[in-house]
């Protein structure tokens, strides 16, 4: 029939499920974050770091192959280095768990912990797109009029923050592990380096969850776009600044810094103290170098303050939950 | 006659976008309306007049002086911007006192002056204790108008001052502006509410696409537009009968009927000749006429005609 009914009609097509709607909130949030040129630069820098890490793993892997171009090039430097490299590489080939497993575990600890600031910066830039702008524009009222609950909305925003950090942290970490081992001289590298990957996933996923929840709390503090990133960065910087004073006075003050708490969790997950002890006891020459690490530093590595870190993070998360509960309500 | 504002080949661009395109005009003292659609260049022109922007080329003078960074000139100009933005944390008296001191009022007189201004713009006293962030749109508009009047300017420039006001409020603002104009203050007002401007302004300045399309009084503009048939709206008891009679008399260029409303809208070929015959034609038709309105004389009509 030529004429169609153009009047208002109820939607008769298929409805997406609740996860589809949550995905839309997360996806829109992530798109809003990625509109920022600076954030895109941070993502780029993070992946460049991942590539460099993969290149370094490739380099290390090549050193384990006696007749590789890398080994031949290094051995050309001087006769002493040639002798050292021969002895070192033959030892490493006999002890793959240490040469591959321990080395990658230690490397990924340092890469994971020292690339965390980039993610913190990225999350700070993404804060306005989480809850802040929605508070300013009353979009929460619009969301609440749709078929999504407050929990769905928050879950979607949580996934936005999680997505940002996947792009800047977990993605490059896992990518570096995969590419680094793909470029290894042997497929067994994947097996020997499995522990490092497991540790990366445990630490990465748990830290990202914690940081995402904290970010939600901070982004709900104010409806002003400039205030929430300022609060986030101020908290981070002051947390770092307080460390030297706290170390000499009230040690629990160190746990006011989320960066410090997450570092303690990293130490516990990666068992860095134990790994360094293994490396010190097993690997020639490196052991002598590691013995020169100051006792204070070794003490910190061997005994992470996990209990305090967990309690500190729990208090922060509780505060964030209270803030979100109070602020994210349709007016 | 003295010229208040003179623009000579004035242009202003934002990157590759032309805000004002080589405009030349003069504004004389009195009440002048600035009319144009969104993006016509009204706010740009107002911001140049009030010294917030510089011309990209050409020149504009107010009281014979260039407004940019010109404190003696700014003493003579009052400005009420578009938009709802006001300092949210301040109370109206606090804000007006601060601005008043900045405008040269003495410390001992500024408070009294601020209170008098708030009374003049009819902001109820029971709201004076609240912060500006808690005000409705209309209340903010009144306070904004008040800050423009604080230092008794000779020229008051208002960008969409009726926005957010209810009909009563618009009437009160219009009354205030008429009183100011009668007191010797020149007013330049931009608005989309053309009916109010029509009743308020002696002269209008029509803008579109950054160009001046017309300037002068409404009568001058209308008479300048050629081949523009007179349009009338007649409210009567037998519109069909009247239409048949007028059509037979050969005076109509066209007509529209709304019998259910009792309305007949006609376009006449020759206005002068029509008016000479009108009384006779009406008596002959036998129709009972309740009201006649000229649609072509309205500012809306001029605006539509000029901007299409």
């Amino acid at each position: 029939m030529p004429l169609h009914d153009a009047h208002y009609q109820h939607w008769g097509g298929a409805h997406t499920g609740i996860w589809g709607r949550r995905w839309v909130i997360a996806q829109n949030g992530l798109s809003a974050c990625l509109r920022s040129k600076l954030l895109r630069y941070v993502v780029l820098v993070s992946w460049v770091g991942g590539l460099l890490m993969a290149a370094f793993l490739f380099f290390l892997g090549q050193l384990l192959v006696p007749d590789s171009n890398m080994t031949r090039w290094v051995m050309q430097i001087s006769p002493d280095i040639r002798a050292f490299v021969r002895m070192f590489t033959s030892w490493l080939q006999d002890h793959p768990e240490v040469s591959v497993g321990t080395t990658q575990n230690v490397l990924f600890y340092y890469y994971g912990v020292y690339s965390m600031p980039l993610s913190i910066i990225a999350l700070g830039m993404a804060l306005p797109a989480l809850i802040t702008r929605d508070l300013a524009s009353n979009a929460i009222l619009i969301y609440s009029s749709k078929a999504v609950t407050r929990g769905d909305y928050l879950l979607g925003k949580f996934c936005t923050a999680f997505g940002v950090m996947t792009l800047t942290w977990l993605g490059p970490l896992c990518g570096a592990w995969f590419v680094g081992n793909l470029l290894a001289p042997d497929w067994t590298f994947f097996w020997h380096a499995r522990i490092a990957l497991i540790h990366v996933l445990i630490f990465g996923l748990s830290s990202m969850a914690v940081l995402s929840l904290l970010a939600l709390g901070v982004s709900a503090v104010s409806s002003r776009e400039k205030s929430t990133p300022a609060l986030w960065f101020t908290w981070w910087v002051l947390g770092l600044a307080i460390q030297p004073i706290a170390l000499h006075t009230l040690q629990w003050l160190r746990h006011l810094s989320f960066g410090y708490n997450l570092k303690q969790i990293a130490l516990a997950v990666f068992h860095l103290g134990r790994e360094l002890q293994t490396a010190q006891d097993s690997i020639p020459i490196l052991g002598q170098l590691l013995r020169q690490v100051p006792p204070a530093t070794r003490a910190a590595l061997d005994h992470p303050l996990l209990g305090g870190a967990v309690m500190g993070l729990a208090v922060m998360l509780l505060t964030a939950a209270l803030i979100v509960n109070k602020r994210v309500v349709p007016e | 006659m003295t010229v208040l504002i003179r623009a000579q080949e004035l242009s202003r661009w934002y990157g590759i976008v032309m805000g004002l395109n080589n405009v030349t005009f003069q504004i004389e003292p009195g009440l002048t309306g600035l009319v144009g659609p969104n993006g016509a260049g009204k706010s740009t022109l107002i911001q140049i007049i009030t010294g917030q922007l510089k011309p990209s080329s050409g020149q504009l003078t107010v009281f014979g002086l260039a407004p940019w960074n010109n404190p003696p000139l700014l003493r003579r100009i009052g400005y009420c911007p578009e938009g709802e933005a006001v300092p949210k944390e301040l109370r109206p008296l606090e804000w007006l006192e601060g601005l008043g001191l900045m405008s040269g009022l003495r410390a001992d007189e500024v408070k009294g002056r601020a209170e008098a201004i708030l009374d003049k713009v009819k902001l109820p006293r029971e709201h004076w204790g609240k912060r500006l962030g808690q005000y409705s749109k209309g209340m903010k508009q009144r306070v904004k108008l008040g800050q423009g009047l604080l230092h008794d300017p000779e020229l008051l420039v208002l960008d969409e001052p009726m926005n957010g006001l209810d009909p009563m409020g618009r009437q009160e603002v219009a009354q205030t502006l008429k009183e100011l104009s009668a007191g010797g203050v020149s007013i330049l007002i931009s608005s989309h509410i053309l009916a109010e401007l029509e009743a308020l302004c002696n002269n209008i300045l029509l803008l579109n696409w950054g160009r001046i399309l017309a300037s002068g009084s409404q009568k001058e503009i209308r008479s300048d537009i050629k081949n523009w048939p007179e349009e009338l709206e007649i409210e009567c008891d037998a519109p069909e009968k009247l239409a048949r009679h007028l059509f037979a008399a050969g005076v109509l260029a066209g007509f529209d009927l709304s019998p259910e409303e009792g309305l007949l809208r006609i376009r006449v070929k020759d206005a002068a000749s029509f008016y000479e015959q009108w009384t006779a034609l009406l008596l002959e038709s036998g129709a009972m006429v309740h009201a006649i309105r000229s649609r072509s004389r309205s500012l809306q009509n001029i605006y539509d005609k000029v901007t299409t």
Partner: protein
Amino acid sequence: MNESPPISSFRATGTHARPGLAGAFRGLWLLTWRSQLTLRQLPVRLATLLVLPLLVYMTVRSTDKWALRRVDLGKSSEELINFLQRLKRERIPATVQTSKALGDILDHETQQSELTWQEWTSESPEARLQRLKDHVANWDSRILSRAKAVLDDREFAEFQVVQQRHRDHVLLKLTEVSVPWSRTEPFYHWLINFYFFLILPLTCVRGCGPLIRDELQADTLGFLITRPVSRARLLMLKYASQVAWLEILLLLETLLLFAAGAAREVPALGTLLPLVLGVQMLAVPAWSALGLFLGQVTTRYMAAALLYGAIVEMGIGRIPTNINILSIVRHLQTLLSQNAAVYALYAWPSGKVATAVGALLVAPVIFLGIATLLFSVIEYHHAAEMQK
């Protein structure tokens, strides 16, 4: 229709003069402090003022508590519990008398060792570390020899494992800090490192950076620049009123910090306070002017300030070259070093006081001058600002 009340015309009385400097400043001062001191903001302001003095009070021990301080050899009760749990796992029965006897030994030896430890002044960190290790080893051997008398062989074997772990944990915790601080040292670190060189500059930059940008983004700049005040004068007076506000706020904070220090009997505060207040009076305009200049140049003025801090203050300022005169921190250090306690603690390289004062007076003039020039010449447009 009601007519609006007539108001007197100033033109009749000739009040058409331009506002004087004092009048304009008074107006801007009114707008500045009234918008920043509101009842709604008061709890947050009070909390931020009190946090740092509270931290000082908590971390500086009183002379009495300091005299009673001991080296921390851990909780003997926890060690006893660990031992009993280990015995239970190994299915070794433990009697009440044995537990009590061992508990008494642990309490007694731990207390004695904690009390007998003395910190020596002018002892090298290496010597202190060795002495600490020897002290812990002595404590450990005394416990083991006394425990052997009350425990049987199986119990003693298990106890040795527990005691070794406990000893290692205690030693690692004690060696985390190689050079312990004196009683009053935390006060100076809070005051100088944390407050003076971190909080104060950040507060000033945050306070003055968005002086124009905030007005622009809120679309209220038009109300100010259409007043009969030149753009240069407007910016300078806005800066002056904001600096005055910051001086008052930071004066309060400094006084509260010193009050906390006095409550904890930090000596010689009477000579330090005037110096700190005087240097602060110079520091606030300098940092504020820097913030204002950065705010005129970029919307990301805080990031720019951190970059400035990294490059100029932490980089150039620490290198002995001719251009380290650019570092504001360096000049502040020169002035603060005039206090003996501060100098003894930090031993900053000393410069000339006159140069430092001169540089701190010139810096705001330069930054403010450039900012004023920019503001006088550049238009600031709300629509363009919102697109950034």
